[in-house]
């Protein structure tokens, strides 16, 4: 089962890695200050990585406990059937597949047709897998035999729980993403707002002036900083050499 986990959630991630663009190529060339996000180590800081890990753990906790609390010992269908290990497992798995794919949909900045295909087909393939795997003889599918077609598919509680858990797992991330892009935007976030605003007005001129002024700012890190520092050192040596030779010359003259 863990092998299929890779299959269902890896495709949107790969699609995101290959096709996502947070800022279009044209704006990249226009605002070279975007390059600073590399040397400033803004995208791969430890705090950011740990934040994502914490988000993963938090989502898993939400999904696990919400699913268990929603499907306890009482019946989950009109005909009085109760849950068992495979039913609970399949429900939790469904919630995970939905939450991960919707997470992709929220995170992606550049929604091409390929992203759409990857995300929606990821979800569709999970249900297809449940049906097909469940139809294989139980000597192979064991506890998952007909778990969707017989038990879960016709149970309104299953769909109700899936909706609740998937949305509940995404609300924390969505809220934090909004707070971040509104109040603590990164440079590429601001360029995204520019791209968005540029469609309605033409603020490029005036903002462009401000931003270009900004891009001439001196920095403390990176190749250009080291080059500037070296220049300052050699310049000062030259000045001192000059002044010492000049003073020597004046001494000699007098």
């Amino acid at each position, binding site marked *: 089962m863990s092998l299929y986990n890779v299959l269902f959630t890896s495709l949107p991630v790969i699609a995101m890695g290959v096709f996502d*663009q947070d*800022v279009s*190529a044209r704006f*990249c060339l226009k605002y070279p200050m*975007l390059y*600073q*996000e*590399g040397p400033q180590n*803004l995208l791969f800081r430890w705090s950011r990585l740990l934040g994502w890990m914490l988000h993963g753990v938090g989502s898993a906790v939400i999904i696990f406990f919400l699913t268990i*609390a*929603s499907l*306890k*010992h*009482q*019946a989950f*269908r*009109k005909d*009085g*059937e*109760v849950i068992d*290990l495979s*039913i609970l497992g399949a429900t939790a798995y469904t919630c995970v597949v939905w939450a991960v794919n919707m997470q992709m949909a929220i995170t*992606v*900045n*550049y*929604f*091409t*047709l390929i992203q759409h295909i990857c995300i929606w087909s990821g979800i569709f393939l999970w249900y297809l897998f449940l049906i097909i795997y469940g139809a294989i003889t*139980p*000597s192979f599918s*064991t506890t998952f035999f*007909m778990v969707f077609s*017989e038990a879960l598919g016709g*149970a*309104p*509680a299953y769909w*109700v*729980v899936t*909706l*609740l858990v998937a*949305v*509940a797992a995404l*609300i924390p991330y969505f809220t934090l*993403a*909004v707070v971040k*892009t*509104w*109040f603590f*935007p*990164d440079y*590429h976030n*601001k360029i*995204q707002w520019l*791209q*968005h605003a540029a469609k309605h007005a033409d603020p490029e001129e005036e903002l462009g002036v*401000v*931003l270009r*002024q*900004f891009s001439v700012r*001196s920095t403390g890190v990176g190749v250009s900083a080291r080059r500037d520092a070296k220049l300052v050192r050699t310049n000062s040596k030259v000045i001192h050499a000059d002044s010492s030779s000049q003073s020597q010359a004046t001494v000699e003259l007098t």
Partner: protein
Amino acid sequence: HSCPMVLRIAELTSFGAGASASTHQPNSKFTQQELPACKPILTPKWVISVFLLVGVIFVPIGVASLLASNKVVEIVDRYDDACVPSNVTNKLAYIQNSTISKTCRRTLKVPKDMKQPIFVYYQLNNFYQNHRRYVKSRNDQQLRDASKANETTLCDPEKTRDGMAIVPCGLIAWSTFNDTYTFQHNTNNLSIDKTDISWKSDRDHKFGSDVFPKNFQKGPLIGGKTLNESIPLSEQEDLIVWMRTAALPTFRKLYGRIYVDLKENDTITVTLDNNYNTYSFDGKKSLVLSTSTWLGGKNDFLGLAYLTVGGLCFFLAFAFTLLYLIKPRKLGDNNYLSWNRNSAGH
């Protein structure tokens, strides 16, 4: 920043493609990463409407779920402590002594009108059917196929007895619940329908109609129910229900259905056989009578969770609206760049 590098890689691949095969389009939209796309952005309008939409969808579902849960009438009666006579000090010895009669009478009062079908469950607490070794302790081939009767792998310690294989082998089958209940409604006998209590797929595909119990519960330690050796496994529904291992330590399993309406304040007298040993591990046994709705049994949590999430979304929508109106930062404003706020500027 990755943007210029991606452009370069795209150019390189496109040139390579162009060189190797003249049928490839060297500068297609795909390789130049210029596919038509929408660039969603978290504008205030979007964010607030998303939260409002989630709230508007969730609150009615929560209300509907709570209404359904309130309609369910449930009678839960714990009997494992009350059904042991008060003069017994060693409960474990009492329950394991097969010579003592374990019959017990309980009286239940119906709190509200219950419409048929009424489901009868037995509920166990602190019983971990999801224990890893327990779940594996069965042999599905043996259960399904009469010719595979001697397949007992994984069934330790209930594999063979006196050199012969046990059918059905394993701890799950060995520990089948064996309390029985008979009901009387206001002095009339109430019949329980014990057919169709298991999943149809189990009866048809997992338990063979030509597999008969053999050599079962013949050892010194009897863990639960003894099976009638002339009834095939596919018709032993109590066994099939029990072998569908529960997910959590507190679980119910369907015992039967009652197709009689019960009125408020009716008295139900239960005559039960308190056979099953839950005393050695502090387990609890309860008898449950319950009606059902489209959502199943009594489940307040689902409705409350929906209302909580819906309410939270309304609150967030409200909060973000306030923030947007009270502190309208120009969203492209330079001064709020994260590294610009600490540095001295240019």
